[in-house]
Structure formats: structure tokens, C-alpha cells
């Protein structure tokens, strides 16, 4: 990476969340599920939200979903993202219900619509052990 290129912030997994990142590394999406309340959970937690049940287990899902909302940032949202604009920052609602933050790739700005179907794109960040979960239109 050139000296004048800003350092993109990368996640620092904790023990609790490591299975999610390990899944992405294998190009799989794994999130938590609480059998007692029949709820899917994202982001990973120690206890299920609301019920606080401690029965969360990891399950693999397709990672597909719909675009809940988005914006196109015309200026970097933080100095670290200088040069990435326009950033198409997306909130994806997984088929299972939970939402996550991502960005859209492989899409024309004009073709983006709230409610559109989207599917995972696994981005192995060069020179790191990190894979980020980005999304593209499912068409």
C-alpha cells in the first residue's frame, strides 16, 4: 500500500465474534440463532437481545437479502475512506430478518432501489486475514 494511501479501518474480531469472520474467510455467512426464542441475531452477542437467553448457536445462512436502505456518500465519511467516494453504503436485511451494514459493489447508481434483492460478495482484503462482506444486485 502506497504511503499516501489512507489505511482503511479493519475489524479486530473478539473471541465471541470470531466464528463470523472465520465464516467470511471461507466465503460463508454464519450468524447466531437463539432456539428458545426462534430468533436470528446479528451482530454476534453473548446473549440473545430482548430475551437474554444464553443459547445462541452459529448457523450458516445464504447471506442473501434485500436492500433495506442506502446512501451514496459523495464525500468520504471519514478521512480513512478518502478516494473511495462515492461510497454506496447499504443496510441489508437478511432473509432471516437481522440487518447488517455493508457496501454495494458491481452496480450502477441508477439501478439501486430500496427493496431490491442482493447477494453476498466476499472481499478478501489483500495482505490481511480479513474478508469483508459486500453485496451486489441479485439478478
Amino acid at each position: 500500500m502506497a504511503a499516501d494511501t489512507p489505511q482503511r479501518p479493519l475489524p479486530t474480531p473478539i473471541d465471541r465474534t470470531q466464528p463470523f469472520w472465520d465464516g467470511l474467510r471461507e466465503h460463508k455467512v454464519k450468524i447466531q440463532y437463539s432456539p428458545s426464542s426462534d430468533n436470528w441475531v446479528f451482530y454476534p452477542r453473548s446473549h440473545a437481545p430482548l430475551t437474554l437467553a444464553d443459547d445462541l448457536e452459529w448457523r450458516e445462512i445464504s447471506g442473501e437479502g434485500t436492500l433495506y436502505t442506502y446512501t451514496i456518500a459523495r464525500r468520504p465519511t471519514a478521512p480513512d475512506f478518502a478516494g473511495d467516494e462515492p461510497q454506496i453504503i447499504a443496510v441489508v436485511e437478511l432473509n432471516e430478518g437481522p440487518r447488517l451494514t455493508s457496501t454495494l459493489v458491481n452496480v450502477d447508481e441508477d439501478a439501486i432501489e430500496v427493496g431490491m434483492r442482493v447477494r453476498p460478495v466476499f472481499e478478501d482484503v489483500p495482505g490481511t486475514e480479513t474478508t469483508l462482506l459486500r453485496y451486489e444486485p441479485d439478478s
Partner: protein
Amino acid sequence: MGLRGEAAIVGIAEWKPERRPTAPPMFTLEQWAQLTREALDDAGIDPSEVDGICATNIRESDSFVPSTIAEYLGMQVNLAEVVDLGGASCAAMVWRAAAAIELGLCNVVVIGAPSWPSPRPPVPPSGLSSWRYGASSANYGSPQAEFDIPYGNVAQNCGYAQIAMKYGAEYGYDAEALAKIAVDQRVSANHNPPAVFHNVPITVEDVLNSSMISDPIHMLEIVMPCVGGAAIVVAGKDVARRSKHRPAWISGFGERVLHKTPTYAEDLLSTALIPAADQAFKMAGRSREEVDLISVYDCYTITVLMTIEDAGFCPRGEGQPFVREHDLSFKGEFPCNTHGGQLGFGQAGLAGGMSHITEGARQVMRRGEDHQVPDADVAFITGNGGLMSEQVALILEGD
């Protein structure tokens, strides 16, 4: 349930917001001392009567904030609060002060929002600024650090734009109606000398022609960051009766906090203000029709639009025609942010949120001068923190 309306805002200090400071930096504690003195002078109350302090963070200390302030001011207090609700903090402090007074804990509470730059240390601190990613925490173990920051989902523009985009997908997006909010508030700013845009009128075309920052939000729909500072004095009935001005009684409040990051909202279009406003009106025994002016948090135009709806002044989804049909300036039939709002007055840090309270109180005190709403008796105020997810509603009333 709730307040009886026996505590009032009786004193105000507010420094003129400035885009670039024209006076030297001051430590937060020094600002606290100066603002407290000005607010007490305004009320005609002696510092020895203060027995409560409500604060937000200060630069000089990460913890033990109220005791540090009390010690610096030489005050001994029965209420020592730190509130951490972003832009909702000041409104949240107002009801806490009123509640402490009605419980008999305090007689005079000072609420401070010092927002002037502090001197830089001779040796710069190591590490990155905690504000590098806006209000998102980059600390180890923070969900935001792990699941939002790496995707650039940080800072305020991005989150409010996501809310506006969702609003548009649900109800349709009338960019001119949103722009009109900034324009009408600017009219009021043009009649308020301390406003940062006092001398700069704008049109709907100006707003729509300003740069697109984060779709669908334009530059002129976003607050102007400033430096400044404000404080208010809240007092009980006996003290209020002998203070200098017509008291602005705090008759109702509501507070609701839902989440931190919009991604994890249960429903992004069902804001925390809905229950908060309902509780405030119910507690005050007031109807929406009895409100003479609203002074509501306006970091963005979409915030005002959704606030008008979620506070119940029009049905949800009908805010855009409502804005088109009403004059929101201080001269109009639906006065909204008569000081110009933070969009026109400027956002001096947390003092920006305080400006909605000082303006609501000023109107009820009948101290609005060139932008006074005639016969203002009932003001509805909001504080909004984070991304519409931390909401406080207040109702202020004259005698």
C-alpha cells in the same frame, strides 16, 4: 404521573455561535464558570443558591465530571448528573433538573453546554482522536468498530441520509418540501442577530443547487458546525417567582432511547420521538393545537420533517405536504425553530441542542425581540441524539 410544572427555566446564557473563534480558547471548566455566572446574572440569582449541576463530558476529565465541576465552581450540590445522549443531552438534563426540584432535592440547578475550543496541550496526546469516526466508537470490542466502521458507515451525514432514503422509499421524496424547511428557518435566522446566517437569505433553488453530500441530502440541509456555549438555570417555584423574567415552566417531558446505529433499528421510520412526545403532551395536559411554537432538533431537514410527524402535528407520511402548506418562520402559522434552528443559527457542539431550549424559553419569556411569536405561551421542544434514536420531548409554558 410526572411533573406538576413547578420548576421553570429562569436564566439563560448563550454565546454567539461562530464558524471560526474570534476569542482565545478556554478550558471547559473556565467555560462552566463563565456561563454559570452569566446565566445566574440573567436570572438574578446568587451563585450561593445553586444546589444542582447537570453536565456532559468535559475536556479536562474522563470521569468524576460533576464533582470536578462543583469543586471548580466552589459549589456543594444535591444533584450531580452527567448525561450522555448526544444532541438530546441538554433536553434530557432539563427534565432531570425539573424532577430533582419537584422531588425537593434542589432549588436551583445549572445546566451547562460549554462548546468553545479548549487550549491544545503543549505535548499532543498519543493515539487517534476518538472523533475520527464521528459518533462511532473505534474502541476494542465496540460493535461499531467491528461491524460498521470497516464499511464506512460512520458519522452523521451517512446515517441521516439512510433515514431520508428509507423515508422516500416509503412515502415518496419531495426534495423541494425538505428544502423549504431550511429556507423558512433561514427567514427566522435573518431576524436573529446572533445567528451565524443572520445576513444570508436563501431560496429553495439555493438548497437544491448546493452540493449533494450524501444522497438525498444537500449541503444546505446540514447544520453548520460552530463554536459557542450555553447554560440555563432551572429553579423551583419560590426562586422562579422572584427571578427577573417571566418563568418558562417545565410542564411535561418524555424520553426514549432505542439503539445506537440505524442498521439495527427495529423500524428506521418509527422514531423514539413517538412515545416521548405522547408522554410529554399527556403529562402537561396539553393538545397539539395549544402549541404556539415548536423548537425541535434540526441537524438535517429530514430530522425536522420526521419530528413534525412523529410529534403528532400531522399524520405520518404527510409531513411534506404539511411543510408546503405552512409558513414555518416566526411570522407563520406554524412557527418552527424561530431562532433559525441549528440550520440557520449554527451548531455549536452541544450548545446547538441547547439552542432549541433557550429559544423555546425565550419565546415563552417573551424575550424573542425581532423574531418573537406573538403571545407565545406553550412551546414544544425536542432533543435528538445519535440518529433519531435518542429522543427527548419537553413542553414549556408561561403563567
